[in-house]
């Protein structure tokens, strides 16, 4: 799905390459973390996939396209196959949750009927059912990121890129977001998530691509990776494991795209949503609460 062949990216007017001779392959349907300290080239990697940047040397193939040879006018078609989520959510502040998600479909010319069907479906999938009419500032950080994920995924792209989606969130909320991405991954979507949050990575047992100053230093298959510091979250995850084992249908349900399955209590959206509420930064939390009480 995504293939890097000896990719080097040097930004203009810099000497050290942001990515240095990186080769890797991310097959269809995989969930991969890209980790590394700040400035190690994670965002650069994402931008190369989206053709926000062009490689200096090497080749990037995405969904069967050689990005170096992709003409400018075909870039939008490429981006329609890639959903993107960022640390700063990038929601439109004057649009409601529903409108924010619908916007992605509107600009692509979807029919009103399709929007009315797909948007609520997607909001339900990310665990935001019932919040359609809220404005972004009436949501917690975790909820805002869920809106962003819904917007990125509403078009059902085969690839989802998440560049430090949990960078602004507290650990519990982060876990909820990552689990949501995992859930999206289980629908067959290739997910690549850049992060420097090793705690979250440890909790997930997925493939981990580690960058250090632009160099690919390790690429470990699912389960190989561990930082050694197994935290509380890991334990929580294990505690949930039996529950999930009891309900194997839940994850299969997503693959089928059966909307009723989204309500299955596999622990993902409720944990994510409930967990981040008490921990949100004061302002957001208070505003959120205020609206909630005035709503009822």
């Amino acid at each position, binding site marked *: 799905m995504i293939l890097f062949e000896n990719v080097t990216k040097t930004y203009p007017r810099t000497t050290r390459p942001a990515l240095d001779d990186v080769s890797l392959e991310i097959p269809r349907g995989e969930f991969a973390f890209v980790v590394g300290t700040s400035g190690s080239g994670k965002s650069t990697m994402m931008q190369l996939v989206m053709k926000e940047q062009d490689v200096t040397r090497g080749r990037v193939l995405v969904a069967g396209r050689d990005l170096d040879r992709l003409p400018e006018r075909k870039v*939008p078609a490429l981006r329609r196959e890639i959903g993107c989520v960022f640390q700063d959510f990038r929601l*439109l502040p004057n649009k409601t949750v529903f409108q924010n998600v619908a916007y992605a479909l*509107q*600009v692509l010319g979807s029919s009103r009927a399709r929007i009315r069907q797909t948007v609520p479906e997607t909001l339900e999938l990310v665990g935001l059912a019932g919040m359609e009419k809220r404005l972004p500032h009436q949501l917690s950080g975790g909820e805002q990121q869920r809106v962003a994920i819904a917007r990125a995924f509403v078009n059902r792209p085969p690839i989802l890129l998440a560049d430090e989606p949990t960078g602004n969130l507290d650990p519990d909320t982060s876990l909820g977001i990552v689990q949501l991405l995992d859930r999206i991954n289980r629908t067959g979507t290739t997910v690549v998530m850049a992060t420097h949050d090793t705690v979250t990575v440890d909790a997930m047992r997925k493939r981990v691509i580690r960058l250090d100053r632009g160099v690919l230093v390790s690429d470990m298959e699912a389960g190989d990776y561990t930082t050694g510091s197994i935290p509380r979250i890991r334990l929580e995850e294990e505690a949930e494991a039996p529950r999930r084992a009891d309900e194997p249908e839940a994850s299969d349900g997503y693959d089928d795209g059966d909307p009723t399955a989204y309500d299955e209590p596999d622990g993902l959206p409720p944990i994510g949503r409930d967990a981040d509420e008490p921990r949100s930064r004061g302002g957001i939390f208070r505003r959120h609460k205020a609206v909630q009480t005035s709503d009822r």
Partner: protein
Amino acid sequence: MRFQFLLGEIGNGLRRNLSMAVSVVIVTMISMYLLGLGLMGQRQVDTMKDYWYDRVQVTVMLCAEKTRFTNCAGEATTDAQRTAIKAELEALKPTVKEVYYESRDEAYDRFKQTYKNSPLARAGESYFADSYRVNLNDAGKFDVVASSIKGMPGVADVQDQKKLLEKFFTFMNTVSWAAIALSSLMVLAAVMLISTTIRQTAFSRRRETGIMRLVGASNFTIRFPFVMETVLSSVLGAVLAMGMLWATVRYGVVGFLSQTLTDTAFIGVADVYYVAPFVIVGVIVLSSLTSWVTLRRYLRV
């Protein structure tokens, strides 16, 4: 759906950026009004040329007593001289179309009658003499007449009305070209304003366009609202300008000038109808071109 969405975006954009849109409307309106005035001036000159060049005459002025013309030597033209001059003029047919004799008193009366409001009135002073008025078949053949008549005994001077008219036309031409030049400066200002407006708008909407880019909206979807907002504003300005021009011609020229100066031809509202489509199409082309070029530079896709 996409069309509806784009219409909505254009409406939102105009509402949110109302002052920008209004400034584009005003600048386009003033520049196009000035341009229109210049073009009307040109058409007025053409109209007057058509009207006058059929009517211009060569005037063969005869000597009066104590006239200042040296050829006369202070003597009035004798009857014999008159006959000789008349015969010479007749001999110049077909260059000469018709020859009339006009006495000094007739000339004065005619001047009072017809030229009282005309710009030619100032040239009237020297007309008060007996004269032969010669219509030419070709207004350009003045020299032929002048060379054979000038210097004949009893001829004070040979004057070409066309020359007088041309001075006047040159003056009008200059004024109208000045208006056009001024309007082109205003057009330049309009272009720069449109460009700045679009940059501002693109900046204020960078969040929206960023998301459009991200989800893979086509260049057309991203840029079309910007282009349409500008084109709509500037076309509104151009239409208002043409409305003002129409009012100027209708009430200023047709309703006033041509009532006052009955002796000459004036442009009418038809001339406004003639230039308006060109002006409006020109504005559409110019504003869409300007906005497209600006967007290419400042709105990364």
